[in-house]
């Protein structure tokens, strides 16, 4: 929860904020592709955004350049010992190695078990079959050879023409060509580039998530002994969104923010803190109470989305 959220907003602002939140959630929901494996329970896969993919691509290209430099300098330092003949060999060997790096970098990594290049892995992306089947080597090859056409061909032609005045308009055409392919993922809902289209693949965002301790587990004692109890009316003030925000606050924020949040909740629900009770104790007890309350209502089919949801 940010500083701004701690000030009391006007009802108009609250309404705006809620609409913005709903909209953000809708766009998030649009990214989800449901896959039903034979087990029957649906898996939700998230399509990666254009930004994520572009970032991964930049990382990969950078890494390729780094690899090429390492190859060239490594070979050059060995060849230096052999004088001029050594240089000729070195150049030929380096060219052959670079050929492999250039053409098989993406294919090598995407065929591997993680189905992702180092750049993709760094951003939590992986390549998957669009229908949920297995990702075949052929699909990986097809999607990566098409990248040559989408990006590297126009780029290399662009550079080879250079500042030649006559070819100016060709440069522009190539630039448009390049832009068309590079921006292609922006214009379809699955964020596919042309290579994905031909290969039947998609890139999904599936970062590793650690299983953290349950916050509620810290307070089973309070649940039973009733050290801190809340009335149903107090628990009815908030909804699921607020519960999730509270979860984030408890998991990752400074004591200061926790204090502010505790104060605001206490004021809002009209709760008088008992003596010797810390903010953390109060928040954890309230979290546990609220979650139990909302989960119970959810079991009866009443999903109270947020505090404005009058159910």
């Amino acid at each position: 929860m940010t500083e701004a959220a701690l000030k009391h907003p006007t009802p108009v602002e609250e309404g705006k904020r809620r609409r913005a939140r709903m909209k953000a959630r809708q766009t998030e929901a649009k990214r989800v592709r449901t896959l039903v494996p034979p087990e029957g329970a649906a898996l939700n896969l998230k399509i990666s955004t254009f930004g994520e993919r572009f970032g991964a691509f930049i990382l990969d290209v950078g890494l390729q350049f780094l690899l090429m430099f390492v190859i060239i300098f490594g070979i050059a330092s060995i060849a230096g010992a052999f004088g001029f003949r050594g240089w000729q060999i070195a150049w030929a060997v380096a060219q052959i190695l670079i050929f492999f790096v250039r053409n098989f970098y993406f294919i090598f990594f995407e065929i591997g078990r993680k189905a992702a290049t180092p750049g993709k892995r760094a951003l939590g992306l992986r390549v998957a079959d669009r229908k949920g089947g297995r990702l075949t080597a052929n699909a990986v090859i097809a999607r990566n050879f098409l990248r040559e056409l989408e990006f590297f061909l126009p780029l290399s032609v662009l550079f080879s023409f250079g500042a030649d005045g006559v070819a100016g308009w060709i440069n522009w055409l190539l630039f448009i060509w390049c832009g068309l392919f590079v921006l292609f993922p922006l214009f379809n809902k699955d964020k596919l580039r042309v290579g994905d289209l031909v290969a039947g693949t998609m890139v999904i965002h599936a970062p590793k998530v650690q299983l953290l301790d349950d916050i509620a587990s810290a307070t089973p004692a309070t649940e039973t002994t009733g050290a801190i109890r809340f009335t149903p009316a107090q628990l009815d003030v908030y909804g699921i969104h607020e519960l999730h925000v509270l979860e984030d606050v408890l998991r990752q924020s400074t004591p200061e923010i926790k204090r502010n949040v505790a104060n605001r909740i206490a004021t809002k629900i009209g709760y008088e803190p008992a003596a010797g009770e810390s903010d953390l104790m109060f928040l954890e007890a309230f979290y546990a109470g609220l979650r139990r309350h909302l989960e119970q209502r959810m079991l009866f089919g009443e999903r109270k989305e947020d505090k404005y949801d009058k159910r």
Partner: protein
Amino acid sequence: MKSYRFREERQADWKQLEDIVQRAEQKGVSGLSDQDMERLPGLYRQAVSSLSVARNISLDQNVIAYLETLCARAYFFVYGTRSRMGERIAQFFARDWAAAVSAAKGPTLLAFLCLFGGALLAFFLTLNDTEWYWTFHGGSWDSRNPNATYDELRATLYEERRDIVDMLGAFAAQLFSHNSGIAIFAFALGFAFGVPTAVLLIYNGVYLGSFYAVFWQKGLAYELTGWLFIHGVTELFAVILAGAAGFMIGGAVAFPGRKKRMQSMREAGEKAAMVIIGAVVMLFIAALLEGFGRQLITSDAIRYGIAITSLIFWLGYFYLPRRVEGDRRD
């Protein structure tokens, strides 16, 4: 609290599944013991059902996010490909590649006609009027043009560079020559109904044909054929197959039949990818032949011998029917 107890009872299993998947992602199947393999299906099914229950009864964001990614990772492993790289490569050379090529006879023939049609056309045009050479080649700096003398042309066919360094250099240069580029683009451009692929092939045929005509006029056709086809059989075959791969995709887009266009393109893309990666392998072999073979062997007879042998080899390899051992797909 229900969701708390639910989690308490199952999280040990989730952790175990995560551990197995983690090891599998790092080391592959070899990183797993028999016991792991035995437990995996059960643990996976349990995690998936936990996920669908958790969505309905738990409001703990962390648990749901954790299960979503855990199940997805396990899914990709359980239903992903399990064969090893080496196995798959062996299978590619033993069966898949030849099967893909021989299944694409139509597109291959079309690509062949484009390339050699262009070559024949340019050949006869240039024979009639050498001006055509300059039309096709522009103002290129190639010394092998109609103005060159017999001796100059002949010398280009038999330059002896028996130095290993030079041969290595020639090989490397060949890798970067336009051929591998043409092959990849002939494939990649296919999705525009195959038209750019045809243009690319015809253009290359024209280039070849006019070049041939220059040597023909000077009475060097026999020598040029040996010089060209010692590696050219493999190289041109590869370019034709790349073009065929392009036509496969183009055809699938233009005439999807009863399938959806996307589906049709995607299926063709799978098959074409096999043909194209094979073409890249062939270009690699061609580069070896050109870089080393052509400099070492200056006898016309042996050059012809290699050319004919390689042609027979490729035709036999691709089109001779072979026994299929049990249908295993990966």
